[in-house]
């Protein structure tokens, strides 16, 4: 069944159809939020809110050539803005390694992956919000430039420029990060 048909069914109140949309998009919406709030609990709460809002207002959703994911990202973006408007005392990044560890069965792989993910995550967090979103949508969730441009309300050209700059920044930061890591290791040895 095509996504447009699933959306139509969900708009008619078919909860099973909406469940399928939920399964398809929950991870990427969760990641999108998680990178902004940096707290597992808050990310879960806000992800729940996003899909609840989507379910409640699905009848008002109109397909205008934009993908459904863009609509969800827009809801997520507004939800995060509201979250920071009401309370801005959440900087719980400590849950990340634990979270990654819980997903992987092999202990060595789990540790390695946790360190790698933590490293790249700490680098990404140093970028501005738009650059973070572009990299996440493009290289983690594999959205097209058009989808990203609709979600972030920017032109496709602007998205390409942001993406290019963000990648360069990440490269520089990773290299510096690596050098710092090597220095630390040398000093410790």
């Amino acid at each position: 069944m095509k996504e447009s048909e699933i959306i139509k069914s969900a708009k008619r109140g078919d909860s099973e159809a909406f469940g399928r949309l939920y399964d398809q998009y929950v991870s990427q919406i969760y990641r999108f939020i998680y990178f902004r709030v940096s707290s597992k609990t808050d990310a879960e709460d806000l992800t729940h809110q996003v899909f609840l809002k989507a379910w409640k207002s699905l009848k008002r959703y109109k397909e205008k050539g934009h993908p459904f994911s863009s609509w969800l990202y827009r809801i997520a973006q507004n939800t995060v803005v509201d979250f920071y408007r009401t309370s801005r005392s959440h900087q719980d990044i400590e849950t990340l390694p634990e979270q990654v560890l819980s997903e992987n069965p092999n202990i060595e792989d789990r540790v390695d992956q946790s360190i790698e993910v933590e490293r790249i995550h700490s680098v990404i967090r140093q970028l501005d919000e738009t650059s973070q979103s572009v990299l996440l949508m493009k290289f983690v969730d594999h959205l097209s430039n058009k989808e990203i441009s609709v979600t972030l309300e920017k032109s496709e050209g602007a998205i390409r420029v942001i993406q290019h700059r963000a990648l360069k920044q990440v490269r520089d930061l990773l290299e510096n990060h690596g050098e710092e890591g090597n220095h630390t290791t040398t000093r410790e040895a």
Partner: protein
Amino acid sequence: MEKKEIIQQLEKLKSIEPHWEFQDSSKRSILASSQSFSLLSLWRPLYMGSFAALALVIGLSIILISGGGSSAYASLDMGDIKDELEELTISIELEEIAYSESLNEAVAVALQEISNDSLRHLNTELLLTEQEKFLFEEEGNPEIDELLNTVLF
């Protein structure tokens, strides 16, 4: 570091996912809630429309009651301004005509009065006669003169 390597690093972030227990409970909770469509959102345009209509009616009523609407709007229309100007000129001309008529009438009345004999106070001869009369009376009363002499001397 190559672009490919960076992208590979970024793809590792895909391992960040919500816990399956959260997914399960969240989804069940959302789907258990009714997808009720708020009647308020349906009626909102009607509310707004009725408020706008009410405001319009009140505004028009105030303008009509105060009676200032026509002049206020007329002042904005060039045609009305021209009409007003023409009416003003005509009324000035009519006032001038009325003034001239009254002036002519006044002059005529004055000339008639001058030529009329009944107005003797303007006649020089009459005035001289009256003066003589006054002089005569000023010659005095002998009784009063006698009494005065008694009192004074």
